[in-house]
């Protein structure tokens, strides 16, 4: 008798599962969020995605490899991504194409070296000399290996905006032959990590969030930290945007709200971001 009752209960449970699936299909098929873009934001976004999954288990958040700010914007506008990550604001053309941006954090734009380089501080003049090709060796005589970024990359754009001298030096560096060109933020961090005597650019958020083994240099004695960025002593920063269509998916809306939520801001603050209001 007890066996019949267990069998009856099992059958009823299975039937109810099928019926429930038929009546409430959303409860069975999980939502998916595809998020990628600038590599500097990927590390922090991965932490946010994990927290969001816990809050909304029905939403699967996928973070493909970095495709850069422009790629993220275009993919988001094209609908290939639910949220594109960008280190630059939308252009008027991108806005016209239906792009919508949401700034969610800032981070320090940093100069970094391979840990084997005996250097912890630099100056803007030294950086200019390095990009202009006037400084090709470290003080100990070892080779200085500059890791360049593509001309259209946001790192390069940020560098040009520092000063006319820096813009000129960057222009010259673009014409130098034999230099390593890292196409993405991750790729840049990878090259700095594995190249002896390397010098390049990155962000505080990437280094911290991805726990990169590279040394960020203080600039004229100012360490690039969230604090120095927040109080303005460290002047060079990058702002991260979440780009969507004008009508993003509900999950994307919810994810954006999660990022701008206190929980999300807390997560960002832990990995080198200065969350924006």
């Amino acid at each position, binding site marked *: 008798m007890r066996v019949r009752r267990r069998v009856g209960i099992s059958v009823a449970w299975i039937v109810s599962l099928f019926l429930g699936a038929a009546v409430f299909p959303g409860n069975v098929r999980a939502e998916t969020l595809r998020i990628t873009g600038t590599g500097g934001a990927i590390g922090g976004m991965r932490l946010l995605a994990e927290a969001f999954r816990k809050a909304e288990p029905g939403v699967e958040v996928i973070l493909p*490899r970095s*495709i*850069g700010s*422009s*790629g993220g914007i275009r993919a988001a506008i094209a609908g*290939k*991504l639910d949220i594109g990550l960008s280190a630059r604001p939308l252009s008027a053309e991108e806005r016209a194409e239906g792009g919508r941006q949401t700034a969610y954090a800032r981070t320090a734009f940093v100069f970094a070296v391979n840990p084997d380089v005996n250097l912890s501080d630099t100056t803007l003049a030294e950086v200019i000399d390095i990009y202009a090709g006037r400084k090709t060796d470290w003080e100990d005589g070892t080779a200085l290996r500059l890791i360049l970024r*593509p001309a259209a990359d946001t790192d390069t754009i940020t560098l040009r905006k520092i000063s006319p001298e820096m813009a000129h030096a960057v222009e010259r560096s673009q014409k130098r032959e034999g230099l390593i*060109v890292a196409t*993405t933020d991750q790729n840049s961090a990878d090259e700095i990590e594995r190249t002896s005597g390397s010098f390049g650019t990155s962000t505080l958020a990437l280094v911290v969030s991805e726990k990169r083994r590279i040394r960020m240099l203080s600039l004229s004695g100012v360490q690039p930290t969230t604090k120095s960025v927040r109080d303005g002593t460290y002047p060079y920063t990058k702002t991260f945007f979440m780009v969507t269509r004008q009508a993003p998916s509900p999950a994307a809306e919810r994810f954006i709200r999660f990022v701008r939520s206190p929980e999300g801001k807390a997560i960002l603050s832990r990995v080198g971001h200065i969350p924006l209001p």
Partner: protein
Amino acid sequence: MNPTAWFGMKVRRSMKTQDRDLSRIIGWLAGIVAVVAALGLPAVYFAIGYNSMASALRIEAEACSREMNRIASENPDMWEFETVRIMGVLEQRFEEHAGDSRRVLGSGGNVIAATVEPVPRPALVRSRLIRESGRPVGAIEVSRTFRPLILHTGLFLLLGVLLGIGVYLVLWILPMAALRRALGQLAREKERAQVTLRSIADGVITTDAEGNMEFMNRHAEGMTGWSREEAAGRHVREVFRVLDGRTGQELSDPLAERQADSRAGEQNVLVARDGTRRLIDDSVAAIPGGAAGNAGAILVFRDETVKVREEEERVKWQKLESLGTLAGGIAHDFNNFLAAILGNISLAKQILDPGSKAVARLEAAERASERASELAGKLLTFSKGGKPVRERISLESIVQDSALLSVRGTPVRCEFGIAEGLWATDADAGQIGQAISNLVINAVQAMPGGGTVRIRGANVIIGQGEMAYVKPGPYVKIEVTDTGVGIPGKNLKRIFDPYFTTRENGSGLGLTTSYHIMKNHGGNLFVESEPGAGTTASLYLPASTECMPRVAEAEEETARDGKWRVLVMDDEDLVRDMEIGMLEHLGCEARGARDGSEAIGMYKDAAMEGMPFDLVVMDLTVPGKMGGKEACARLLGMYPDARVIVCSGYSSDPVMSDHAAYGFLGMLGKPFRMEELKRVVEQVLAFPTGRARGKIPECRKAGIATMVAGGRPRGLPCGQPPGTGPGSRRRPA
């Protein structure tokens, strides 16, 4: 125009034509090469540049596609949005080129990324597929404008044009200079060869392989009667008509038969355009070459007519000379005997009573002897003897008198055409009259039914080589033409042979004698005849080139008292006695000597005795002893005023015909009659000498006056029209 200059001009004109043709060909070739060079340089540059560009683009597209394959494989879903990485790939440069464009296209052909704006057209585009796991997901397109290539090609085109101009000039100038040198050399060689052909004395004709006329020199023109222009292109048989020397048949193809028979050197007959026939030696040589091994032929021929006629003349003259020598010898001896016969008959007639019956018999004997003497005289005339006794005469009256005399009593009349101002000649008037008479008599006999003998006289100048047997110079030409039966060809060659006659009453000595008369005068006699059409005999007598002589009119009457003393020298007793008898009959005192030495001795003795001889009559030839010529010279050496008469039966001896040159004042030809002796003796004795003056010979008393035969003449001034001076008077027969 000078033929050589004309020919040179023609050769140069021909060479200029060739020069223009070759210049045009070389110009075309140089132009083609120059155009190829001018266009080839930029074309090659463009082709190389295009291929190089295409290869570079292909390699770049290949390299980029590999990078893009990796990007697509690493991010299959989102690779199209990896703008930075894609741009990194697109901005990689293997070489710096302005105007390059690289694009990444999606699977739908949409542009995913591009370096710059599309390059200006025209552009070269190379593309490669972008594959992800082997599946094509897009394409990379590399394009590059080739405007710079076109621009550079244009610059190379300019360089090519300059190069082409240079090539044209080099290819045109250098070969043309070499060609002109070669053509000039060829022209000079050709001109030299042609001028050589023109200048040689033989006729030269060249033909092509078909026997058509190509060239003929001036002599060939003269002999054939065809001009070069008229003959050009005609077959040689039209221009060079030749009769076989043996058969008289015309050769159908002179070139072919000459070459086949190899009969070069035979004397054939060339028939000129106007029908004139010439004996020629001809030879033919083939010109090797051409496709068939025969490029033509060279025909060389020489006019041998003159040479052949000269040879015939020489043979004829030799034959007559031999006969003349024989006849002369016989006639001389015959004359000696006749002299004795006639002399004695004359004496006998003087001795006998004129009414004696014996006188009639003696006169008959005398006539027979005179006929025999005439025959001997004829023999002597055509023999080596018969040397003319020349004097400056005009032929007009001699010709007319002799001709009219010869036709008297016949049904033939004479028609004269003597040109005015006929030149004088130095001739023996009697012999010339005899020659004319012989010719007219022949003409009369050729027209037994009557007719007209046309006698023409003209002055002619014979040029060098113009006539074979007449020396160059001025001549008086006398033509005697009849319209009689003519002379067959077989007889024509023998008409000058002595005693050759086709008439019953002919002597066969007429033409022979006339011929010898003319030859002895330095002239000639030709006879042309065509059976049924008549005969023309042409006499050529050298015109006198010296002043006319003034004949001494020895009309001076000389007076003399007493007998003339005459010395007679002759080795023949009969003759000597006969001459003495004649002289004594004439009233002279005559003495005789057997040879020259004896005569000189007697003359010296008489002179020493104060009774010199007034006259010496000397025989010219004394076998084995001193003759008259030497004796006269010696005598005159001792006694310059001596009067000497030469007497001989050899009228051909130069001493007889020109006795004055040897110091003789007179000449007597044996046999002679009393009258002749009297005349000559009177003439000589009339010659004034200091010693002889004051004596009057018997003959002079008889009132006989005559000219001095062969006397010492005095000349008239030059420019005297021939035949109008006193010297034109005929010597009495």
